[in-house]
């Protein structure tokens, strides 16, 4: 079965109340096509997992502006004033997670781990409600894994099997998220035949990618 999917076929894949994770750092490495399909599907009440909420018109920012998100798990929201406004008004629940911890929680979710132990956040509000463990005399926080129903991935290139090659700093959270969701959809700039990507270059194996959409189609 071909993984190549049209924009219109994507829209019914989104459901109200879903947990969605999206790659990207300040919108770089976020699939604008998949965000736009998600918006067009009119689903709401989403839980969104992302590094940040970019700006109002970039990255996952429009999902916030259009009030599709009920809970956000992110490391930074300061560049999108609408996120802060909705949080202060009580319209949006926000869980702020240190960026390195967020990456590891997603990695744990995709790699069968029950969590990770990190020293980040010890002695700060981040430790509230979390189990603290001492290992060889140093304190760590137990941070739980994160998974989603859908992962929105942005890569530079895919082959028809779904092997992905990322570009520059657009890689960021994408490789971990591609392992941590039930349905993994990748937007790519270019699609090539199987065998045309040097296996050394593959950063995400096609075995975890379910759907591929070519940008601008």
């Amino acid at each position, binding site marked *: 079965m071909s993984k190549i999917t049209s924009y219109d076929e994507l829209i019914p894949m989104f459901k109200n109340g879903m947990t969605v994770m999206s790659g990207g750092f300040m919108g770089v490495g976020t699939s604008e096509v998949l965000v736009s399909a998600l918006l067009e599907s009119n689903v709401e009440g989403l839980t969104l997992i992302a590094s940040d909420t970019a700006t109002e018109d970039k990255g996952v920012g429009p999902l916030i502006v259009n009030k599709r998100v009920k809970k956000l798990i992110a490391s930074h929201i300061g560049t999108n004033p609408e996120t802060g406004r909705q949080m202060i008004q009580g319209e949006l629940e926000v869980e702020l997670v240190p960026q390195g911890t967020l990456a590891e929680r997603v990695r744990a979710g995709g790699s069968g781990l029950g969590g990770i132990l990190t020293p980040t956040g010890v002695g*700060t509000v981040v430790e509230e409600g979390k189990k603290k463990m001492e290992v060889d005399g140093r304190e760590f926080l137990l941070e739980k894994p994160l998974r989603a129903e859908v992962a929105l991935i942005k890569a530079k290139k895919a082959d028809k099997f779904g092997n992905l090659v990322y570009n520059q700093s657009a890689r960021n959270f994408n490789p971990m998220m591609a392992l941590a969701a039930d349905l993994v959809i990748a937007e790519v700039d270019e699609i090539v035949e199987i065998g045309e990507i040097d296996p050394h270059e593959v950063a995400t194996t096609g075995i975890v990618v379910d759907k591929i959409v070519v940008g601008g189609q």
Partner: protein
Amino acid sequence: MTAKEIIAARAAKEMNDGDVVNLGIGLPTLIPNYLREGVNVILQSENGFIGLGPVKGEPQGELVNAGGQPAGINPGGAFFDSSFSFQLIRGGHVDVTVLGGLEVDQYGNLANWMIPGKMVPGMGGAMDLVTGAKNVIVTMEHCSKKGAPKILEECRLPLTGKGVVDVIITELAVFTVTEDGLVLEELQEGVDLQTVIDRTEANFRIPELA
């Protein structure tokens, strides 16, 4: 020189040739302009690469720094994902991180990520950086815009890290954080000791200043 330039120029002296350095947004990004001759540092950008440099040629949309602004990558650099990026940071592979501060105290606690009820931008990578970098330097103006001291007996704002700061550099002075509290290492040019005492809430030790 402006206060920011004085601070950046002094912070540059803390860098050693070959250091892997992560610079926070704002003031710390001025530091490379003041590096001594023969000191070359390797900049880490926490969004996923080593070898951060100026934009060369046309900006490329998918090559940005940790502030989301167009950036370049120097020869010898490497791209990686966010998990690996923070493995470098927490794993002690970054020699120096330089960040701004809202408050620092005599225990080396740092608060720089939120003001409850006013500003809640999130911590981004700051908590990981202060936890993992070998040398944590806080660069900030000595007092707030309203003139209130920012070097305190104990931080009042929510912390970014507990006991993490090694060096504090302001336009008035340089302090190190030791197990016995703050030590005044240096007065900036033209600054007298009384000014620093008056504008610092925390106690600090004063070794014989050169």
